[in-house]
């Protein structure tokens, strides 16, 4: 179907945009001004590494291997059968690339939990090991006919388990093992540029249509006419659900923080957008309009309440990867068990539609599988890196700013006052000395 192919080209590019630059902007604005470049670089570098790993052995390990197609019923597929996309036709490349962009953003999402303090070299070591041991196996089990899917078929339209629960668990484990930033809970660590965060959240929303709507899978063997009918129905539902759930989540977050803290904030709106998109990711093909609004509103309100908990636990999940992606991913994944309806493309009735507990059971198993698998393996990877090359920059580098320590750069040529209050006027006195020729 030619129209579908053209659509997938666009959808794939949209999902690429979610990592580079949408997530980098969303996260970058929330860090302090001395570490914004490092934060953005973690997303950019993650994309580059995952892309290469994906074509080398990622596709084979997740979706191919064993010479029996996708459904081998095992925990992983053979990473070497299609090494370097051996045997994959050029006409199938766009399908590979679409999945590649998902793997990349999942890793990039994790970086928000460990902002401001991790050596770039340690991140570069972590990324390929993590996707190999955690992302490709979970994707294989949930989406590509692996062991889990051959026992319990869970609904995960675009990655509630594979992307969001996965990244949320990994982020929480890393934040725990790598430790708090110096001054966490004592010094103000407020976002340095919420306009970047608002732009990032908006671009994520835009890109998410590629992510969710692009995740349509055709029923094998149907003719062109049936394909067209399925395409129009299914993309209509997923596009609509993605939109209204996100709107409900933004309002849900704003309402919750108005109740808890007295004011509706721009950071709350940006966060609510992302929480809603996370929650509707697995469920956008499973629920009705009412279901989508309920999922969005619950996710927005629940995540707004959840992000404050890290201070109680003393866990420096810096940009709330657990509070937004794990909590939002779990809400979206588990609510399918209640709100799924056979009238939606997913075609299964959940608890509220007379389908009994079977859907809820399968959703719970898929969520638990992801939490346990990634929780255990991320712990092993993180500890190994900790005792070998180490994770953190030196204390004084962290305090002075990781941007200069790790990259030799500063994000802004502004004379910013004392850091607390707000003089931001550019001053001739603050201009740095430039040696002519050196930077030419």
């Amino acid at each position, binding site marked *: 179907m030619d129209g579908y192919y053209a659509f997938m080209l666009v959808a794939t590019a949209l999902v690429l945009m979610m990592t580079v630059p949408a997530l980098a902007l969303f996260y970058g604005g929330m860090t302090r001004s001395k570490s914004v470049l490092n934060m953005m670089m973690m997303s950019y570098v993650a994309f580059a590494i995952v892309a290469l790993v994906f074509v080398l052995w990622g596709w084979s390990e997740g979706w191919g291997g064993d010479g029996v197609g996708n459904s081998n019923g095992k925990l992983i597929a053979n990473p070497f059968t299609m090494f370097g996309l051996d045997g994959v036709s050029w006409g199938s490349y766009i399908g590979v690339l679409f999945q590649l962009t998902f793997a990349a953003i999942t890793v990039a999402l994790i970086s928000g939990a460990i902002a401001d303090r991790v050596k770039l070299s340690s991140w570069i070591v972590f990324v390929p090991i993590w996707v190999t041991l955690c992302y490709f196996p979970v994707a294989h089990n949930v989406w590509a006919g692996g062991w889990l899917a051959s026992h319990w078929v869970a609904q995960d339209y675009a990655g509630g388990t594979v992307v969001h629960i996965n990244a949320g668990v990994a982020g929480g484990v890393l934040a725990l093992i790598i430790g708090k930033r110096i001054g966490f809970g004592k010094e103000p*660590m407020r976002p340095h540029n919420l306009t970047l965060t608002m732009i990032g959240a908006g671009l994520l929303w835009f890109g998410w249509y590629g992510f969710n709507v692009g995740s349509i899978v055709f029923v094998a063997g149907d003719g062109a006419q049936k394909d067209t009918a399925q395409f129009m129905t299914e993309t209509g539902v997923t596009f609509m659900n993605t939109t209204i759930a996100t709107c409900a989540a933004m309002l849900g977050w704003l309402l919750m923080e108005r109740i808890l803290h007295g004011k509706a904030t721009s950071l*709350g709106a940006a966060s609510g957008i992302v929480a809603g998109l996370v929650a509707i990711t697995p469920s956008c093909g499973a629920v009705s309009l009412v279901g989508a609004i309920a999922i969005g509103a619950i996710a927005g309100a629940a995540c707004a309440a959840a992000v404050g908990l890290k201070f109680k636990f003393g866990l420096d999940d810096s940009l709330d990867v657990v509070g937004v992606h794990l909590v939002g991913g779990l809400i979206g994944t588990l609510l399918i068990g209640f709100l799924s309806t056979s009238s939606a493309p997913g075609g299964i009735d959940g608890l509220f539609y007379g389908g009994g507990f079977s859907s809820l059971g399968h959703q719970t198993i898929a969520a638990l599988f992801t939490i346990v698998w990634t929780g255990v393996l991320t712990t092993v990877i993180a500890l190994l890196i900790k005792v070998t090359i180490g994770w953190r920059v030196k204390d004084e580098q962290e305090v002075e700013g990781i941007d200069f320590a790790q990259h030799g750069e500063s994000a802004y040529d502004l004379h910013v006052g004392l850091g607390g209050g*707000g003089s931001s006027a550019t001053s001739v006195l603050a201009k740095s000395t430039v040696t002519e020729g050196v930077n030419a």
Partner: protein
Amino acid sequence: MKLVTAVIKPHKWEDVREALETFGVTGMTVSEVSGYGRQKGHTEVYRGAEYDIALVPKIRIEIVVDDGDAEDVVGIVVKTAQTGRIGDGKVWISPIETVVRVRTGDRDEAAL
């Protein structure tokens, strides 16, 4: 000669400048500064985390005037910058030994 230094709320800056100009003050140095007095700072909440922001933005005005004008200038600043609420700022007078106009080399009163 005296140096009058005023630290005031930013939103009162335009009113104060106009009043001073009407009085006949010909020049001043103005900077955006941060600080706090008895009012202390304020709190901001981001994703449920409450931060105490100790420093509050203020405008600092510095004017060098004849001895006889100093009290009048202070009076104008107090009258125009006052809102009656906490955080209105401070004005103080300090003695100045010498002033030189860079362009001409004029000294003291002639340099004002």
